[in-house]
């Protein structure tokens, strides 16, 4: 078992416009209505030049990262980070692959540097001036669980405060038929090795083969949960929004599950 402490969250998806604003929906007090997602400007984090180079996928991830660190006493430049995304920026992949079919293949330098999986991490670390370690990863359908485990090993073995950002953004139509990311979704969790005055809950992680993945009782939220690997975080977010002791079970690899037990801070 691995234990760490949750200080703050960020959330952005159609109809879930921020962590705090989403509480009534996640706790079942209001119905889920997938309204359009307003475009976020990372101007508060990045210079105008860097800002102009960011894509929709990058903006979405930066938005939840910024929300998670907005009201925490931890200095943001001291945070290590984990960016978990099944496919990162599929719009860029699509654009480059199209460009490679035309004469002379005029790949844009900016598109190319944005094509690396850790482009979002690059913008984040530039914007926050964090020279701490940062890891960008994928584990396809179980990317959120893999992100939680990666963050947990950094928190506990290296004794570091870590910002975990999980995000997925759909591909343009042609590519999206095979990629299967249906809805933009991003969430961020700020995690620490020890409880702090700002801690909301402790999270205890354990791998098992004995459990069933947690599904959501509301059909529309359950549909959202299945719409991207990042949205597999929804059962955990629901327990946290309710501020109750409970557990959320995520499917992991090879018929294993990641059990995340939540204990709210008193």
């Amino acid at each position, binding site marked *: 078992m691995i234990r760490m402490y949750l200080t703050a969250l960020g959330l952005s998806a159609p109809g879930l416009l921020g962590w705090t604003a989403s509480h009534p929906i996640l706790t079942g007090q209001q119905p889920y209505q997938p309204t359009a997602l307003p475009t976020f400007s990372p101007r508060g984090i990045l210079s105008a030049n860097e800002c102009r180079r960011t894509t929709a996928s990058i903006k979405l991830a930066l938005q939840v990262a910024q929300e998670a660190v907005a009201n925490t006493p931890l200095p943001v430049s001291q945070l290590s980070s984990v960016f978990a995304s099944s496919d990162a920026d599929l719009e860029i992949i699509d654009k480059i692959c199209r460009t490679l079919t035309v004469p002379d*293949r005029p790949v844009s330098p900016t598109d190319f540097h944005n094509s690396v999986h850790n482009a979002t991490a690059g913008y984040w670390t*530039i914007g926050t001036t964090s020279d701490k370690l940062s890891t*960008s990863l994928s584990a396809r359908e179980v990317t959120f669980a893999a992100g939680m485990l990666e963050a947990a090993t950094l928190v506990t073995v290296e004794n570091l405060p870590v910002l975990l950002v999980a995000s997925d953004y759909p591909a343009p139509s042609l590519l999206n038929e095979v*990629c299967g990311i249906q809805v933009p979704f991003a969430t961020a969790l700020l995690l620490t090795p*020890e409880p702090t005055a700002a801690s909301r809950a402790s999270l205890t992680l354990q791998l098992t083969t004995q459990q069933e993945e947690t599904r959501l009782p509301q059909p529309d939220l359950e549909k959202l949960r299945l719409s991207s690997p990042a949205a597999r975080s929804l059962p955990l977010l629901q327990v946290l929004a309710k501020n109750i002791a409970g557990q959320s079970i995520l499917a992991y690899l090879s018929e294993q599950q990641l059990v995340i037990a939540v204990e709210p801070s008193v």
Partner: protein
Amino acid sequence: MPIHPLQLSAYSLVNALGRGINASWSALQESRSGLRPCDFPDTPLTTWIGRVDGLEEEAITGNLAHFDCRNNRLAQVGLQQDDFQEAVAQARTRYGAARMGVFIGTSTSGVQHTEQIYRQPDPLTGKLPDSFLYRYTQNLFAVTDFVRQYLTLEGPSLTISTACSSSAKVFATAYRYIQAGLCEAAVVGGIDSLCQTTLYGFNALELVSAHPCRPWDSQRDGINIGEAAGFALLEPVHSGYSPPYQGGAGGGKPVHSGHSPPYQGGAGGGKPVHSGHSPPYQGGAGGGKPVHSGYSPPYQGGAGGGKPVHSEYSSPFQGRDGGGKGIALVGYGESNDAYHLSTPHPDGKGAILAMQRALTSAHLAPDQVNYLNLHGTASRANDLAEDKAVVAVFGTQTPCSSTKGWTGHTLGTAGITEAILVSLCLLHNFLPRSLNTNIVDPQLRAQILLDSSEQPLQYATSNSFGFGGNNCSLILGRLT
């Protein structure tokens, strides 16, 4: 505090130098480059590349045929070299499939397959063909999934994709998973294959050279892109290993008094044991500040804090090339430049931090490192920034070279490729020259080796720095 060393019990390589460890080793000894003028199909660029021959004819067949694409073929060839698969199979019987992690670095996975598919949309509908199996080819986890299934391993797994530091960082991730008790041993690897995305992308950034790349040379003018796969089996060092850095002033005793490692259990019982903790935000390779303020007595510790494990195990794969002596990961350091997406910090700020954190985690002083394998891409800006960083950390006397002149820049595979080349050099007490470096740029001050030589080696550092400002330095050491 120092990390517990992880032994590289087995490893394999494939790159432009050929298939298997011996192909790379003999090329290093003979100063034979694997680079050639670009002959990648349908890619008329004036540059040189490091290409692996024969991949076009080696489809993945059988029950893993759905993974077939150049990148996974390259992984398959890598797994077939150097008895690696057999070594993993033996480890699997000891640990169990679910207790062995698989951590793979790649920058572009199978994007080359998607590039090809985009040239052949359905003539009637304009759609991508039904035969396009994106999730098994281009998705970043596809190659890791393939490796897991090829080796029938079921432990924790992920793909790290941080551009050119990817397959260096997998060593650090594997270490942490083992320390946290999530697995007992791990296969780490890197795979990146040639594709037009990187060839035309680096060309658009005006970073590819029309010549064989010349790291640190006054005439250097860019990189050569290469493809490669590399794998290593990592296991906690078993009993009988006496860490070479236990000696020093303290007489060889473990020095963790009052400052135990946070997770001693690890490989033994599978569950981490909480036995105290380090001061927040300082400990380990990733911490902000070096914690060895007293730094006295130096270079002890090592594996002393953990329990001996696997005492019955004597790997037949260990040290075949080196007279019974093996290699271990003894340190790592990770950092970010926080400067620019595709240009290194001009003073090597992030690179300095990565090397310093690696030294801290290895509990080594800079002058104990006998050789430094540079990231050394041969781009004007990269070599200049890395030189400043190396001189700031190691001074101007530590022998350095770049092996990109042999293999090209293998991007996400550079980390593990060079970690394994460094391992061979340690085993053979061989200091490799910086191939294609003729006249060292007078602006650069690191001690660049223009000739290969033999001399006793104990520790070596390998640098890997990537786009996004992502940096990782590894320190490997000889087991004595």
